[in-house]
């Protein structure tokens, strides 16, 4: 058997992203003889920083053998069943984006067209009231899938993970699994004179770490792919005007909510992400419209709790032209900085890793793998961008320049077609490489008031009485099921050890 094409994989970065990347690569590639070495840069996270994740993180953790209860206990994390979007800017309608499906099939046909039709006949029940996950979330209940629930529909959950303890946890995990680490304050990538690929990383103190393949997890600075290899970064500031993020924390909310709350205010939005120890608050705004001082006042007012430890971060939404160049792949924010609205940071990191694994070099020649990776990751990132762009484009958050401006940004062709087709028929156009599923798109589009003008003609064969009965049955099922669930607080106390050991 031939030796692996890559023997020494060097991962450069910091905080949770670098350790998550290292754990995944070590887990998947150590059997092939790949040695994973992390060059750890100084942390850039502060106590208020939190990862509000999406549901896909749980199966990744599980694959890595992470004990959820211990992780949640040790990091003082909470669970999340979705995001509640509130309008305190214009006082318009709010909506819930749940991590689960809405309704159930009726007469073996989709739920949505039945709901659209019923609304025409005056049904007064909101779409999200047919969602078990959303109803459980609003009542503070943990939702543990059982066979009943699984036969009804799909439900999932995510986490609010405080960034500092999460990174510490992942680091211990990676080191225990055999990842080697060099701590560094300064790095200097050294290129091969002829090929132009990265040969080694020089560290402060005269150290030098050589490798065959490199992951750039250095964040938006992209010190390897961007600075060393000169891959350019495309700005998406035109589409996403927010370029500042203020993070702070306040007192915990009691009882601890099981969802994130996103409050649109006059010149930006505030996200409230509860952990067990505190409430993490993120205020997102545009430096052209709001000063940092004004931002803290706006954040405090919108969060309605006193804020501490505020830190302001600059963000330049955008992405590198290619995530993989020569022998270096940018992962996470080094590849793309997204708008903070749906908290996709770890999701984007995960996409980068999951696409890389089945294309990781197996021979010294890998141009075709690189092309495939760049194409797929770019496409996946564009679909995430579409989801975020739709939130801004469709907002009804008043006439202030932040939100009114967002409504003027022309959507890309794919997003435009998606909104058009949904408005016309309630059909979610589902492209290749979508991260957000049909349920997510339905929640987002209906939440923003895009009401389908017609529905799948097939449902006219179902009798109105049957539809009415099914609606009642679904609402009854949700009511009963939610009552059976324990509260989020109880679940955190009883299932998740308060102080865990890593494992």
């Amino acid at each position, binding site marked *: *058997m*031939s030796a692996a094409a890559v023997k020494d994989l060097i991962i450069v970065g910091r905080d949770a992203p670098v350790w998550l990347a290292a754990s995944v690569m070590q887990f998947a590639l150590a059997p092939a003889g*790949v040695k994973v070495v992390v060059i750890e840069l100084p942390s850039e996270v502060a106590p208020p920083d939190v990862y509000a994740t999406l549901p896909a993180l749980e199966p990744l953790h599980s694959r890595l053998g992470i004990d959820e209860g211990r992780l949640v206990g040790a990091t003082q994390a909470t669970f999340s069943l979705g995001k509640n979007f509130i309008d305190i800017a214009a006082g318009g309608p709010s909506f819930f984006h749940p991590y689960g499906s809405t309704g159930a099939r009726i007469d073996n046909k989709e739920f949505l067209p039945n709901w659209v039709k019923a609304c025409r006949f005056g049904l007064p029940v909101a779409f999200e009231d047919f969602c078990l996950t959303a109803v459980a979330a609003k009542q503070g209940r943990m939702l543990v899938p059982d066979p009943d629930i699984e036969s009804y529909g799909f439900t999932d959950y995510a986490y609010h993970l405080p960034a500092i303890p999460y990174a510490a946890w992942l680091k211990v995990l990676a080191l225990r699994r055999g990842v080697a680490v060099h701590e560094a304050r300064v790095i200097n990538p050294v290129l091969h004179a002829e090929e132009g690929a990265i040969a080694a990383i020089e560290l402060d103190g005269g150290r030098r770490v050589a490798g065959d393949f490199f992951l750039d997890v250095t964040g938006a600075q992209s010190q390897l792919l961007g600075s060393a290899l000169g891959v350019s970064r495309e700005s998406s500031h035109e589409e996403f005007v927010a370029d500042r993020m203020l993070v702070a924390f306040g007192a915990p909310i009691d009882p601890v909510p099981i969802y994130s709350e996103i409050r649109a205010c006059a010149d930006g939005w505030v996200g409230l992400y509860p952990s067990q120890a505190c409430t993490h608050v993120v205020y997102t705004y545009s430096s052209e419209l709001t000063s940092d001082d004004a931002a803290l006042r706006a954040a405090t007012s919108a969060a309605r709790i006193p804020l501490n430890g505020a830190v302001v971060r600059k963000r330049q939404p955008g992405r590198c032209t290619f995530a993989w160049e020569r022998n270096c792949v940018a992962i996470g924010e080094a590849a793309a900085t997204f708008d903070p609205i749906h908290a996709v940071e770890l999701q984007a990191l995960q996409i980068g890793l999951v696409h890389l694994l089945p294309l990781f070099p*197996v021979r010294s020649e890998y141009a075709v793998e690189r092309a495939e990776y760049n194409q797929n990751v770019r496409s996946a990132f564009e679909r995430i961008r579409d989801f975020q762009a739709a939130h801004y484009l469709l907002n009804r958050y008043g006439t202030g320049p932040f939100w009114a401006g967002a409504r003027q940004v022309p959507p890309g062709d794919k997003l435009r077609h998606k909104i058009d087709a949904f408005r016309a028929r309630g059909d979610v*156009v589902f492209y290749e490489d979508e991260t957000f599923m049909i349920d997510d798109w339905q929640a987002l589009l209906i939440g923003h008031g895009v009401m389908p003008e*017609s529905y799948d003609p097939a449902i006219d064969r179902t009798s109105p009485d049957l539809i009415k009965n099914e609606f009642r049955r679904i609402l009854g099922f949700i009511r009963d099921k939610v009552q059976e669930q324990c509260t989020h607080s109880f679940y955190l106390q009883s299932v998740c050890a308060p102080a865990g050991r890593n494992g």
Partner: protein
Amino acid sequence: VTAALRIVIVGGGSAGWMCAAACAQVLHAERYAITLIESDEIGTVGVGEATLPALKDFNDLLKLDESDFMRQTQGTFKLGIEFRNWDKPGDRYIHPFGSFGQLWGGVEFQHHWMRARALGLDPAPLEEYCCAIRACRRNAFDFPDTKSIRSTFYGYAYHFDAGLYADFLRRWAIARGVRRIEGQVMGVGLNAESGNIEKLTLKSGEQIAGDFFVDCSGFRSLLLGETLKVEWEDWSQWLPCDRAWAVPSERAVDFTPFTRSTAMPGGWIWRIPLQHRTGNGHVFSSRFIGEEQARETLLGALDSAALAEPRLLRFRAGRRAQAWKRNCVGIGLAAGFLEPLESTSLFLIQKAVQDMLRLLPAPETGNHVDARLADEFNRLSDALYERIRDFLILHYVANRRQGEPLWDHVRSYPLPESLRHKLNLFESRGHVPYYKDGFFSRDSWLAVLFGQGVSPKAYDRLADFVPREQLSEKMSDLHERVATHVADMPLHSELVARYCSSSPQLQAAAVP
């Protein structure tokens, strides 16, 4: 009360009647009125006797009884397609409707198999880890397990007489309220302002008005092509075959649960086993072989006596640039043609019918055309056609039939970039493309890539997690399970006789 939307289907072959039947099943009769115009004077092409597993979903949508449907259409089961002589003369491989091996640790089986080979564990040929292929080799068939998978996953399709299938659906649809009009369309009336189709004038002088029109008129493309002037996109630079001779022959001794496709110097020959006869045809390129010689080639290749004179079909590969324009959708040959190498004809019809049903105008909007719905239909249609096209081209391009002008030609032409990339990726590491929309699946690509002799230079090292001894054990265990699974299957001929035999006489054509 809103008046029903009048849907007028032009043409009564497989496309027309599949469309009419599905409309009758899915739509509410008070909201949609379905009319189909067909002429006994116009023959149908009747291609598509071999199908893909998705056809079962279509029949399920109509709630057809499978054994009854098979009895009435002389149907048999199909587990895949055997390709003979495609890589080079003497070679053969099967493209199965099923998977090779199993996913171990999230890593596709071909990587484990390639690794076993690299480690010198001497695994059996890849096809022996596929239960559908081994069943084909035995001429055996059984229904897939519904509860647990005994060895490897598979599905199945059918071979049947497409003319009988259209007859069957005609009776079925008429019994459910579809109005059939016998007649030939002589004129098409357009609205002067919108350009929408408003009415059709028949030879008898009768006028048929409608709100929405489905063009199932075959190659002629009477509405979409001739009337609405949708351009034809020609794909003959990649798929040069443009003729076929078709001839039925007696039922052969070799009653295969698969279609056979045999490459010939000027094209390829299909062989489709039905209950009462065998369907045969020679698809060829008139640039490389004359019609008469092609006819002789076909007759010489039959493995049973011919039952009729061969019939010549002319076609070209390609499609209409828009399958849905204004208030008209083209379905079947009116929208495009891809040679039946992978039995996609009825699948293309089925998919178009299902997408159209979902996107049909609401009766409230009358004949107002919603471009947003048409755009979505066309997007889906484009993706499907292009992907099937790439998959068909793969069969031609990856050949080693040196010195034969057709095959030398197809080996040398510039490929669509999308296909070139897929080939490179497979050669580099056995990576098989995945996409959500359109056909074909990873297993299909794998079967044809390996079958046509494309050889990966390496395997995915994610497979290395299985310890060597365990790999050897897992491979031989799976091999054994596939073998015993297939050994327990009845012969295809026995199962057909028991389950859906059309003899001793054809069942009276009762409406199901």
